């Protein structure tokens, strides 16, 4: 099969400032642009390209490919981008199972990988690599924050569920790490599953006082709509993935009031974020999601490193990335020793603003949080 390939060359703007010494840099972006998970990949891509366009930098080119959420396709694309397109940096993967298939071989071939989303535990601990940077979060992070929030809210036996793939396992691990209560039940669902009648029946049969779920993309829409009509009214908690801007409109009223955890929201007050939300809305005519913010930050991190170091001098470029000298839209941002973020994680609530469903931050769950796997990581 032949897939659409878009090559963007972002070297059009006039560089007004003094020329900097950076050499040309080629980025390969492999992300999900078709099928069920396409909204997520499109947001990452649009956020990334917006930052590239705004920088007006010369000598940066981006090749974008669609992995269709299939690990085998992602691996083929990575080989093609590295071997025939000769990219210096890879980025873009949304799903942890795809990241597990692509990232280790990419870094083994001496390329940089900047993750705008997936952060499986295996790549943060023993499997970490000096050339692998995660600009979003280690998978556990948002779920840990949800567990922390559940303690505060006084829940003691949540029913917990997630899809059966690396990020789903990380989700339940993360929640349980912080949660002081005992889960009333624990379920792994199929990835891509759309009917949650059986799961809802099991929640009903349990004596849970709350429900924690991690169901990204379309899975979350289905669950929320079905839950709303099930007659159950236990409070729901989850990470931001089931409540991002892309899917809230499809869920509708069923999501209003639900608490969810995120490292970003459009109402975080800093100049970088306010400018980002405004310009994203102007360019794409929709509100940015957290995926878009992660894509935007990933590009800005890359641009900041490009401005001070040449990608062919790997050590210098790595040091420049480690410095994370860019204005993150989420505010304070630094890398821990395993190249995963140290950042605040907030609790948001779904609200209705006019006709649009969106989130507002209600409190901070974890301050300057980093993951527990850093201790196992040595380069």
């Amino acid at each position: 099969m032949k897939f659409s390939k878009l090559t963007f060359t972002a070297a059009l703007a006039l560089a007004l400032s003094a020329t900097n010494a950076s050499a040309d840099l080629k980025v390969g972006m492999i992300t999900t642009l078709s099928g069920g998970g396409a909204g997520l990949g499109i947001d990452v891509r649009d956020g990334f390209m917006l930052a590239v366009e705004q920088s007006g930098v010369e000598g940066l080119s981006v090749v974008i490919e669609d992995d269709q959420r299939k690990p085998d396709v992602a691996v083929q694309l990575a080989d093609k981008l590295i071997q025939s397109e000769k990219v210096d940096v890879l980025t873009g993967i949304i799903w942890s199972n795809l990241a597990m298939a692509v990232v280790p071989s990419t870094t083994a071939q001496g390329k940089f990988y900047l993750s705008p989303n997936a952060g499986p535990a295996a790549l943060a601990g023993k499997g970490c690599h000096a050339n692998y940077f995660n600009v979003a979060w280690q998978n556990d992070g948002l779920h840990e924050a949800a567990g922390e929030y559940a303690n505060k809210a006084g829940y003691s036996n949540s029913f917990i569920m997630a899809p059966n793939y690396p990020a789903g396992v990380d989700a339940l691990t993360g929640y349980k790490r912080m949660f002081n209560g005992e889960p009333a039940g624990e379920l792994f669902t199929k990835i891509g599953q759309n009917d949650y009648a059986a799961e809802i029946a099991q929640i009903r049969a349990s004596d849970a006082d709350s429900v924690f779920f991690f169901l990204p993309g379309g899975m979350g829409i289905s669950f929320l709509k079905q839950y709303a009509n099930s007659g159950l009214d236990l409070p729901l908690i989850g990470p931001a993935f089931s409540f991002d801007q892309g899917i809230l409109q499809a869920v509708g009223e069923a999501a209003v009031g639900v608490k969810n955890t995120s490292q970003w929201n459009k109402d975080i007050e800093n100049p970088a974020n306010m400018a980002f939300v405004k310009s994203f809305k102007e360019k794409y005519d929709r509100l940015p999601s957290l995926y878009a913010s992660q894509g935007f930050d990933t590009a800005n991190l890359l641009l900041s490193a490009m401005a001070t170091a040449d990608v062919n001098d790997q050590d210098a470029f790595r040091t420049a990335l480690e410095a994370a000298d860019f204005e993150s839209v989420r505010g304070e941002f630094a890398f821990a020793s395993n190249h995963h973020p140290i950042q605040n994680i907030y609790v948001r609530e779904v609200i209705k603003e006019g006709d649009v469903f969106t989130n507002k931050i209600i409190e901070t769950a974890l301050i300057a949080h980093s993951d527990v796997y850093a201790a196992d990581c040595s380069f």
Partner: protein
Amino acid sequence: MSLMLVFEQILNGIQFGVMLFLMAAGLTLVFGVMGLINLAHGSLYMIGAFAAAAVANATGSFLLALAASLGVAAAAGALVEFLVIRRLYNRDHLDQVLATFALILIFSEGTRWLFGSFPLYLDIPDYLKGAVILPGGLQYPLYRLTIILIGLLVAIALYLLIAKTKIGVRIRAGENDREMIAALGVDISKLYTAVFAIGAALAGLAGALVGAVQSVQVGMGEPVLILAFVVIVIGGIGSIKGAFIGALLVGLTEKLGSILLLALLSSFLEPAQAKSIAMMFSSMLIYILMAVVLVVKPSGLYGRRV
């Protein structure tokens, strides 16, 4: 495991089963009458859901949305039959698979081009929202009960259509002997278009009904398609009755299987161990069911002997 849970799962299984039946009925008719493997049946399901979402958002009426899903999917089915499928009846199955797979890609990207990549909003109407309390005190979503009812009504209507009407006689004749019915002067190409459109309309209806409680998005039809194929293989290819029984069997296995298996294993294994084994097997149950049926009855429960 409580009795209530089993009861709820039985209802869930029946609801899932009648949905699968709507998909499988068209698939099995098309295969039985025209001998065609139609992989693009899942796309018609998606088209039904998108048509319903578009109409519901424009008019606010759920009934109009359901009507639109029937109409648009039937029209899309008839159009595809006329333009593409018609050329495939005399080709071998591999050509049919290739061409209908191409149709999946065309429909998926076409829908994305029209509606974008983000899921669409389609909700159930207010009068079907919420849960009702059934005898015995079980709360069950009203909408799912409605789906069961619609599914059963469609099954009865389909039975009457096939058993009692002239077009039904022709469909049955077409299944038995394609050449003969053409020789007797029946306009076979019109019959084929009609059968294809009926199948498409049912798939579209299923897409709209399910879309209201799931997410209306590109690619939603393919996972259902695989199960629909399992259903028609279990039921016997070409048999509507087989599709109905097969769909209920698959639905009940899917929803009841995992909890019964867990209860069974928990009686003699450690909870954690029982859970991991039950989880491993629960996704296989449907395929084990299919394998057992095929061993006992190689042409499916109600299939013709081959």
